């Protein structure tokens, strides 16, 4: 179905109908937080999208300038509150890289396990809310049912279900126990059945396919030009994954596939994320197998002071490249910290994706880029 607007002409002259301007948000059921999108509608067709952000601005970057490095770690959890582990990892890796600290192998494996569990965790939320955006309430509750299990894992190991404060410069805060490993193994055994249930419930549904195929299409060139990363980029056919392209931790020792699709539409992003969940489960499995004995926290200076200079570290978060850019003047506190938030980058693509589609597609598109407003505004 062609969903582009064709100029409507009669007798050579363009016919204009009155356009409606609608404020979608800041309080709206499907903007995933407080996003205000000013839509220009021609009937139900979207002719323009203007995103207004900043409703959730908490001065994360500015506050960081007043905090010591260990104190910043809990703040990173709150930038993208659905990807705490990977955010902490991005920050901690940057600091370690600046200090030249060697992290024990066990800690590296634990970090991989946490990152991948976090990815599954985040994608499960995305799956549920995406279903919710499309009007199916049940996937949301099923995915939350399964996500709760991972939350329990995190709570057991870090003490919190969302704001973990788990990564440390030089390792992780707590060790994982054999009982915990066994529980995760048990979860991984059941996980394919969960995914099968999601597939039966939503993926195979003709309404979902009709709603998502060909919607919000973005080609590889545009995606790269806008700096997209993560599933949004990979769904456009670019097999770019930091875990492969710039391996950190022990990702180069583990085998996994980079999930890609070529269509670049909502359905492609949907498929990529579902595939990624499977791959992440595989990664956790491998990391659990190969988990070595040893320290979970290496040697780090008592007072962390970064040598003057610029440092950038990045990891593959659930939403894309999470980057941490630190400018240090040698103090215990960063001179400047910049957070590269994938959601913020992907939000710029929204007007391009949404133009010419229907009101209802707008919701599907926002859902498919999986924005977290906490990360956009920081």
């Amino acid at each position: 179905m062609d969903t582009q607007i064709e100029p409507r002409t009669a007798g050579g002259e363009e016919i204009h109908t009155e356009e409606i301007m609608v404020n979608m948000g800041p309080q709206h059921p499907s903007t995933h937080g407080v996003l205000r999108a000013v839509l220009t509608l021609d009937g139900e067709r979207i002719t323009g999208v203007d995103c207004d952000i900043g409703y959730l601005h908490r001065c994360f970057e500015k506050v960081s300038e007043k905090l010591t490095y260990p104190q910043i770690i809990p703040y990173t959890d709150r930038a993208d509150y659905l990807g705490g582990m990977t955010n902490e990892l991005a920050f901690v890796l940057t600091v370690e890289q600046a200090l030249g600290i060697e992290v024990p192998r066990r800690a590296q494996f634990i970090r991989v396990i946490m990152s991948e569990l976090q990815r599954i965790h985040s994608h499960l939320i995305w799956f549920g809310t995406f279903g919710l955006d499309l009007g199916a309430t049940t996937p949301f509750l099923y995915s939350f049912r399964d996500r709760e299990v991972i939350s329990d894992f995190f709570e057991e190991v870090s003490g919190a279900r969302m704001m973990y404060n788990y990564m440390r410069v030089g390792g992780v805060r707590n060790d994982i126990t054999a009982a915990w490993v066994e529980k995760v193994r048990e979860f991984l055994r059941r996980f394919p059945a969960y995914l099968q249930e999601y597939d039966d419930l939503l993926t195979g549904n003709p309404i979902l396919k009709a709603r998502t195929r060909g919607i919000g299409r973005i080609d590889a060139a545009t995606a790269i030009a806008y700096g997209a990363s993560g599933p949004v980029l990979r769904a456009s056919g670019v097999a770019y994954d930091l875990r492969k392209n710039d391996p950190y931790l022990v990702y180069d020792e583990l085998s996994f596939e980079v999930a890609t699709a070529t269509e670049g539409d909502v359905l492609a992003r949907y498929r990529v994320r579902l595939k990624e969940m499977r791959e992440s489960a595989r990664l956790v499995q491998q990391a659990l197998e190969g988990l070595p004995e040893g320290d979970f926290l290496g040697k780090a200076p008592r007072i962390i002071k970064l040598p003057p200079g610029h440092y950038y570290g990045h990891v593959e978060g659930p939403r894309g490249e999470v980057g941490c850019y630190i400018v240090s003047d040698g103090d215990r506190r960063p001179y400047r910290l910049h957070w590269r938030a994938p959601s913020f980058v992907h939000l710029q693509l929204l007007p391009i994706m949404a133009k010419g589609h229907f009101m209802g597609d707008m919701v599907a598109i926002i859902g498919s880029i999986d924005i977290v407003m906490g990360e956009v505004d920081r």
Partner: protein
Amino acid sequence: MMAVWRQVAEGVTGVIKGHVVTLRNLFRRPVTYRYPQVRPELPVGTRGIPVLLSDEEGKLLCTACEVCARECPVQVIHISAHRDENKKKVLDEFDIDVSRCMFCGICAEVCAFGAIAMSDVYELADFEQDRLIYNKDRLAEIGRRRRGPIINYGIKTEGPRYGPEPAATAASPAPAAKTSPPEGAKP
């Protein structure tokens, strides 16, 4: 023509499959529970509000060194102390503004005396904002009331620990004690 029929068949089976999934779940045990009556079993080491620990005689372990207040990222700990005749610090006030606390656990982590721990108290709603500033008596009271072991997490904590000693080594939390995922988590 065949393609159209295949598409129709796919669509119909897709819809039917979805209905089978929901119907199957209709006969499963719900995973939710009646919250205030049925409570989740929290793992050891859950981070509720930070509390003050006391020794066996009920004396607070805190020495008013103010490390926690300094290290708190959100600056919610207020401590005041005076020196007694032996030039020893005596704790006068120890307030935590729970309404701003983000439960990161850094205070418990940095305390060299093991005087602060994260409790398993998480129901903190109150009608007055003033009541959300917990003074040292309230914090100590919660600390004495604790159920099960409180594990003072942290990297450098080696001070005396209140409650039964966990089985594992000093820094490892041994959270395997008595946790179980909420019932019905298995489909």
